[in-house]
């Protein structure tokens, strides 16, 4: 026979373990699906630039520096909310590429004129095919890409001050140091 305190404590311990597990689950966001692309090279693509149609943008543009790829569109409301944070990052010297996803070229140009342009360049993905290759399922999304063109992090949904200070900037700093 088990000692009686074990018999009484077992259900309590099991309950607490289950409660802790479920409590943790409450804080998880089911919309944030981990990307299988993390740790893999940026998917290959070649797209015209948004403003300068004569220029092609491709995955090899990411090589040699730590950069962000921000997926956005003018029809995306939370992209508008996120925009000031991108401006702030650009001012801090972060290299931000844009993937203008399933957008209207003129609308997008007007948006950048009106609200400011934090991007060094924008790939114009009219039909969303490149978006599919990048596993985009909701704008905005932001990828952190290292010097070798490997995706190191994906932020789903609009960037927040906490995400930038807590994850994005420290990761960029770390990746830059890794090089040296």
């Amino acid at each position, binding site marked *: 026979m088990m000692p009686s305190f074990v018999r009484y404590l077992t259900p309590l311990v099991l309950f607490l373990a289950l409660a802790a597990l479920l409590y943790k689950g409450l804080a998880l966001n*089911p*919309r944030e*699906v*981990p*990307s*299988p*692309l993390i740790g893999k090279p940026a998917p290959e693509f070649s797209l015209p630039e948004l403003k300068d149609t004569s220029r092609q943008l491709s995955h090899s543009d990411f090589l040699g520096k730590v950069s962000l790829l921000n997926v956005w569109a003018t029809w995306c409301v939370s992209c508008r909310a996120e925009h000031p944070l991108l401006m702030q990052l650009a001012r801090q010297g972060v290299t931000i590429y844009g993937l203008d996803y*399933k957008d209207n070229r003129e609308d997008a140009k007007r948006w950048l004129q009106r609200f400011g342009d934090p991007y060094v360049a924008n790939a114009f993905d009219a*039909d*969303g*095919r490149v978006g*599919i*290759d*990048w*596993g985009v*399922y*909701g704008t905005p999304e932001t990828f952190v890409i290292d010097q070798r063109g490997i995706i190191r992090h994906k932020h789903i949904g609009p960037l927040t001050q906490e995400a930038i200070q807590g994850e994005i900037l420290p990761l960029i700093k770390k990746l830059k140091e890794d090089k040296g």
Partner: protein
Amino acid sequence: MLRNTLALICLASCLNLAWAAGLESFDFSGNVEEQRYKDLLAEVRCLVCQNQSLIDSDADLAHDLRLEVYELMDQGRDDTEIRDFLVARYGDFVLYEPPIKPSTYLLWAGPFVLLALGIMMLIRTIRQRRQLQESQFSAEEQERLRQLLGNNPHEQEDRQ
């Protein structure tokens, strides 16, 4: 009665329209077999509205992915290749039935492990109870117990 029937007809036609909206523009006379196409789409989760499959969802992304899957089938890719294509981009979560691999062992085996544990506990409890019944009282104690229970004056009073 008539009103109910009308409402039903209306509902049915709405559902029909919704169904047709997704697959309206595809041509199934060529390489792509309609049933195979629909079966595969039904296995794939739409990441925008996560409780709908690609075939049910009206999200923009679902439209794009339906087209993508159609084209892949048209190019002669088999179901496994198309599933791999989607998983490489969106992860295992895109499949309603996750693959069996180390990180999903618990997911697949969990219910059976719990069932086995439950059966083990049930068997043990039944055995313990049986032992308890046999051993708790000696013969004399059981006799006395019967006397006490059988000749309880209060109980008899109550019954009257």
